[in-house]
C-alpha cells in the first residue's frame, strides 16, 4: 500500500522554464549591446564566486548543510568550493579561531589573489562569541579585513545565504579601481599587509 503522503504531492509548474541572471543596464540595438565594463565584470564575478571554507568547528557543520542539496549554495554560482587559496575569491571563516590559529588564517588570506573578499560566519569568527577567554581571537577582524559578518551561534543556512547575497552585492557593485586606491592601501596597512 502506498504511504499516505500529504505534502508536495502535486507538481508545481516552474515560474520560468529557465533561470538566468538579469543583464546589466545598457544600450541595445540591432546587433550590438553597449554597457559599462565594470558592470559586466561585476556580473561575471558575482555569479561565480569560488568560496574557500576555513571551517574549524560547529559552524562548519552548518556550512555542510548549506552546501548540500537542501539549501544548495550552488544555486548562486558557488558550487565550486575550493581548498586552495590561490584559486578562491571568498574566504569564509567558519568557527572559532584560536589565537594560535590566527597566523594560519592570515597566511591563507595572504595567499589569495586580489580581488578577494572575506565572510565571517558565526559569532566566534565575528567577535569571539561565547569564548571570551585568553586563548581565543576576539573576532577575525583583528587580523584580516572582513566584508560581511553573519551572526548566530551557529547561524542558520538561510542567514548564511543572506550574508552570501550581500557579498554578491559588494562584488557586483565594486569599483574596478578600488583595490588600487590609497584608501584601500591604507586599510591594508592597518593590518600590516602590503
Amino acid at each position, binding site marked *: 500500500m502506498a504511504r499516505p503522503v500529504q505534502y508536495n504531492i502535486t507538481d508545481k509548474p516552474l515560474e520560468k522554464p529557465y533561470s538566468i541572471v538579469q543583464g546589466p543596464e545598457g544600450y541595445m540595438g540591432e546587433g550590438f549591446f553597449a554597457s559599462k565594463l565594470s558592470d559586466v565584470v561585476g556580473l561575471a564575478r558575482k555569479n561565480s564566486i569560488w568560496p574557500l571554507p576555513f571551517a574549524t568547528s560547529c559552524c562548519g557543520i552548518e556550512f555542510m548543510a548549506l552546501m548540500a542539496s537542501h539549501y544548495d549554495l550552488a544555486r548562486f554560482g558557488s558550487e565550486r568550493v575550493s581548498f586552495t587559496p590561490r584559486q578562491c575569491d571568498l574566504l569564509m571563516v567558519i568557527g572559532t579561531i584560536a*589565537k*594560535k590559529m590566527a597566523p594560519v588564517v592570515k597566511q591563507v588570506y595572504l595567499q589569495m589573489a586580489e580581488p578577494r573578499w572575506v565572510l565571517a560566519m558565526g559569532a566566534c569568527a565575528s*567577535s569571539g562569541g561565547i569564548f*571570551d*577567554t*585568553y*586563548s581565543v581571537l576576539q573576532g577575525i577582524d583583528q587580523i584580516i579585513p572582513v566584508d560581511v559578518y553573519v551572526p548566530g551561534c551557529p547561524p542558520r543556512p538561510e542567514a548564511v545565504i543572506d550574508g552570501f547575497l550581500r557579498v554578491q552585492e559588494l562584488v557586483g557593485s565594486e569599483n574596478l579601481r578600488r583595490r588600487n586606491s590609497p584608501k584601500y592601501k591604507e586599510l591594508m596597512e592597518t593590518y600590516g599587509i602590503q
Partner: protein
Amino acid sequence: MALTNEIIRSRLMEKFGEQLTGWEEPYGMLTFTSDKDLNLKVLQFLYDDVELGFRFMTDLCAVHYPNEEGKELAVVYHLHNMRENVRIRYKIFTGIEKPDVYTASALFSAANWMERETYDFFGVNFVGHPNLKRILNVEEMEYFPLRKEYPLEDQKRTDKDDEMFGRD
C-alpha cells in the same frame, strides 16, 4: 600478593620515614606529599623498587591555591603500576615567587610535554628540563593563564561595553 595501599605506604615509610606527609586515601587512591626537593628521590624509588614498580606516569599537572601562603602551587604526579593495576598520587608544593621544581623528564619521557604544559599554564619552572617553553598557548603570551590571578575575561579588549554585559 596484591599490592595494597598499606604495603606501598609501609614500603615508602621504611625508606623515607617522616619526610612523607599528608597521607590520604580519597576514593581508595593513595595520596601523599613531601618536600619539593625530594621529588626526584621519591619518584626514582617508586620506579626502581621491585615491589612497587610505578613505571608509568599517567599525569602531571599543577593546581593553584592562592590562599596557601608559601605553597601556592601544587605539582601533582599520577603514577601507575601497570602490572598490579594500582595507581597513586604524589603531590609537592612550591611557593609562587620562586616556583622551581626538579624535572622528572629524565625519569619519565612522558613528563617532558606534561611539564611544558604545566609551565605554560601555571609557570612552574622545571629545573633541568631540556626544552621548557610554551606548548599550547601562543608563544608571545606574557602570563600564565590558569593561575587564579586574573578575571575570567580578556582585559585588553575594548569593543565590549561593560554596561551591555551587566558588569561594572
